[in-house]
């Protein structure tokens, strides 16, 4: 077993454990902390693929900015622990079969895939921050600008909603 595969399994296990703990925790802050573990483990997986820039951005944006905002809001509301409830009917009769079906679908897809997948190339065209930014600001400049416009509208909407309550 090569070191990189070992690191992959550790990080993958961390991500899965974090995701499960995110759902099972009863306190919102513990759930948020589990989500941070998932984000950082995913960043480690990106690093393993040789995408340094994406790793840093994943930690700065998701691990840092967004999750800090989550924690900040939870702390501000200072909510207590959640009560355990019986599962809703929809979750029992709709959710569980659906989850099994999706898991089966993925398993079948993996089982049917023949041959080796093409190996990911480290230091390929997408990993360097320079080529990545060149692509964003030349070929994909319209989608990029549209996305930022969409986010701006969302921020304005949030401000309008917050103002109305006062």
């Amino acid at each position: 077993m090569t070191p990189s595969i070992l690191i992959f399994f550790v990080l993958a296990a961390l991500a899965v454990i974090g995701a499960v703990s995110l759902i099972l925790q009863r306190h919102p802050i513990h759930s948020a902390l589990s989500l941070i573990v998932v984000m950082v483990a995913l960043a480690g997986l990106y690093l393993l693929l040789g995408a340094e820039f994406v790793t840093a951005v994943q930690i700065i944006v998701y691990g840092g900015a967004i999750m800090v905002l989550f924690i900040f809001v939870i702390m501000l509301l200072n909510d207590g622990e959640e009560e355990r409830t019986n599962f809703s009917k929809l979750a029992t009769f709709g959710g569980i079969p659906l989850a099994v079906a999706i898991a089966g679908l993925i398993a079948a897809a993996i089982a049917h895939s023949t041959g080796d997948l093409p190996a990911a190339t480290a230091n390929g065209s997408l990993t360097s921050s320079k080529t990545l930014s060149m692509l964003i600001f030349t070929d994909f400049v319209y989608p990029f600008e549209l996305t930022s416009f969409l986010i701006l509208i969302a921020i304005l909407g949030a401000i309008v909603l917050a103002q109305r309550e006062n």
Partner: protein
Amino acid sequence: MNEFLSQYAYLIVPIIKIAILVLVVLTVDAYLTWLERKVIAHIQARWGPHRVGPHGLLQPLADGLKFIFKEDPMPANVDKVAYVLAPFITFLLAFTSLAVIPFGPQTFTIWGYQTTVGIADVNISLLVLFAITALGVYGIALAGWGSNSKYSLLGGLRSSAQMISYELSLTLSVVGVLLIASDFSLRKIVEQQGTSGNGLLSWNIFPQIIGFTCFFISAIAETNRVPFDLPEAESELVAGFHTEYASMKFAMFFIAEYTSMIAVSCLATILFFGGWLSPFPASWTFTFYLPSVILIPFGLWVIFDGIRYENIFGRILLPGIGTILTLLGAALLLFPQVNGIVQGPFWFFAKVFIFLFVYIWMRGTLPRFRYDQLMSFGWKFLLPVSIANVILTSAVILWRTRQ
């Protein structure tokens, strides 16, 4: 044995380097608290620590022992996971941020493994540093929330809001430097500032004076130091987020604060003040003797001051330290090769020391911001100015390339 060493050098060498760095930084942290107390005392016309050892030089040791042997009570109804985890996260991240900082220009080979002065030489070291800073909020936020105390919670909330606000201008203020260097690697950024051979004139501080001002202000806010120390404003919040911590857990917050001060000073040195580069033009070879010229007179002065000290312990210890410093300076004169190696780190640490002194100086001088002033200053002044700096810098670079 040698075979083993060369086979696992990629593991052993970094571990040794990390151990040395951690030891050095912990010692510097300890003496930084001594320096801070001394400098602030002299600003306020007092003597500062004076009893433990000559000139209070053993005070950090006494403080360290006190922290270790103090009782470490856990308050009732705290969130145990968050309460215990918080100081560790803060401590760990503060030290991790030092891992990507290059301290000198040389590369050397140990046991067939080529390595640099610094722990890791990453292509995107600046982004790594920002990623670590981004995670740094959690330690303080969790400490504030996990302590189950109103003062701590308010301190934690203030701190998270402050760090989110000032992280934006911190990141935007270095974009100017990135545009000039067109690289994320701290090593490349320093090397780019030394290409012209004009010494101090080619540093980034001159084209990026606005960027540096924004960077330094936001960096102080990120490290929660005066005048931005609202998370632990003692007159309002007792001690803010670390009110409920004692013993080593408190010491970890304390050490982390000083370590992140060092990290920020290193970053300011690298980004704007040419890192390990000498401020003099390369043709002025006599500046090579500057480390000796500073060390020898300082050592002699310490000896001269020490022999008149009031107790016998000081009359032995101080001249001893002075003799070591003088001999060190003389050794640098005698061995030009060693002197050549020392040049880079000498300038680096000299600049870092000046920044650390400015940090302490400000603590002795400036009053604390009011909370609403802090927020409006960050969002309405610092952020627009750093965005304007980005636009200005890109416009100038574009204009120059068009010519």
